[in-house]
């Protein structure tokens, strides 16, 4: 469903992505991990065209993201994205946050959008927060609203960009629980994260990146069993020893 083929990207002189290739099939959950600055977030933002890239191709459901002819807003409306810092719209209520894309992009009637939003809030356990503003919610609650906002568009795939790294430890699980449930329902997901417990539990494959390159791309069992590269081994030993 998502195919990344020989992608190269430069920020001025600095090459952030080097010849990256991988693919994600329908219903697959792929975790991307690696040290900070390795290009994980940049790669995931290339998938929905938030970051341009200079060489290579990325296709989502057969549509080429880098093609100038591609209707990016249309493409993005089918791909949900969840950000590290939630990025809820602070001037809108929770309900308005979830409803905006539905009414302005999908053209749903406000009443229909609201019904759908309430359903999604129920799913992430936040129905009683519907009329609040994001600043009145905890980080974990905000991130669950952000997931609901993405799901409201009925996406064919979800991108998660370090969804738990800005959260206090006690709130990480409430977000991971929602993501695990989503994965088990068969959602196609690319998740940039350091949560190796999550990767073990639901990921089909793990992609390990370092210095802009995809160093490992393997099934979850193989990755945690016998990572082939020294770099991945030392990364794993560092984050798994606690």
């Amino acid at each position, binding site marked *: 469903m998502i195919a990344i083929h020989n992608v190269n990207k430069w920020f001025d002189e600095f090459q952030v992505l080097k010849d990256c290739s991988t693919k994600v099939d329908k219903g697959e959950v792929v975790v991307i991990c690696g040290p900070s600055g390795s290009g994980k977030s940049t790669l995931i933002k290339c998938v929905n065209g938030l970051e341009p890239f200079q060489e290579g191709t990325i296709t989502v459901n057969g549509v080429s993201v880098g093609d100038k002819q591609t209707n990016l807003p249309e493409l*993005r*409306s089918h*791909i949900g994205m969840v*950000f590290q810092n939630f990025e809820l719209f602070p*001037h809108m209520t929770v309900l308005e946050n979830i409803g*905006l*894309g539905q009414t302005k*992009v999908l053209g749903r009637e406000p009443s229909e959008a609201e019904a759908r939003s309430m359903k999604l809030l129920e799913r992430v356990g936040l129905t009683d927060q519907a009329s609040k503003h994001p600043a009145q919610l905890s980080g974990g609650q905000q991130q669950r609203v952000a997931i609901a906002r*993405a799901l409201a568009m009925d996406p064919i795939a979800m991108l998660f960009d370090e969804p738990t790294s800005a959260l206090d430890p006690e709130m990480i699980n409430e977000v991971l629980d929602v993501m695990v449930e989503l994965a088990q329902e068969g959602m196609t997901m690319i998740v940039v994260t350091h949560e190796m417990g999550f990767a073990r539990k639901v990921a089909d494959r793990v992609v390990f990146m370092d210095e802009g390159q995809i160093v490992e791309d393997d099934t979850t069992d193989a990755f945690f069993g016998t990572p082939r590269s020294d770099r991945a081994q030392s990364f794993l030993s560092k984050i798994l020893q606690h």
Partner: protein
Amino acid sequence: MFEQFDFHVIINAMPILWDGMLITLLLAVVAIVGGIVIGTVLALMRLSRFTPFSLVAGSYVNFFRSMPLILVIFWFYFLVPMATGQALGGLSSVLIAFTLFEAAYYCEIIRAGIQSVTRNQINAGLAVGLSYPQTMRYIVLPQAFRNMVPVFLTQAIVLFQDTSLVYVVGLKDFLTAADLVAVRDNRVVELFITAAVVYLAICLAGSLWVKKLQRKYAL
């Protein structure tokens, strides 16, 4: 100086002062609303990646910020009629001059406000499938305007007081009217104190109203 303070002078002057106040308010409201509308367009142009847009808007701002307001008024009152062969008249001249002049300042305020909204917020808007103009309209501008409110207030107060410059083209704004009566009746103390009190009251009321707005729409 104050022992002969005569309130009757003020009461008698009310109709003239009120006419002056109408000019002052008309000018202030038109220049604020027009300035914000044109300023928003200029700010979007200035931030545009399309170079001709940003160049035009940048030049506009630099030009008007370099000119004293009074010179801009002279331009529209004296020079534009010479160029077009058609006199604009005092009121039209100052309405146009004030609006165009203020637009340059509002442009810079709005540009700063837009830039105060993070790239990630824009990404979040784009990620749900909004187009760039929609993201501007629903995500960026509402947040930008909230951040700008205090600076808007300062700018509005400065503008409100600057309206007294219209005396140069023979218009009677509030302060000019007060001055006229003061000289005519030889009642400088009464009129100038009244003028100060009125300015103070209006600016104070404006500040309080903005504070209330801010509290209501606090993020």
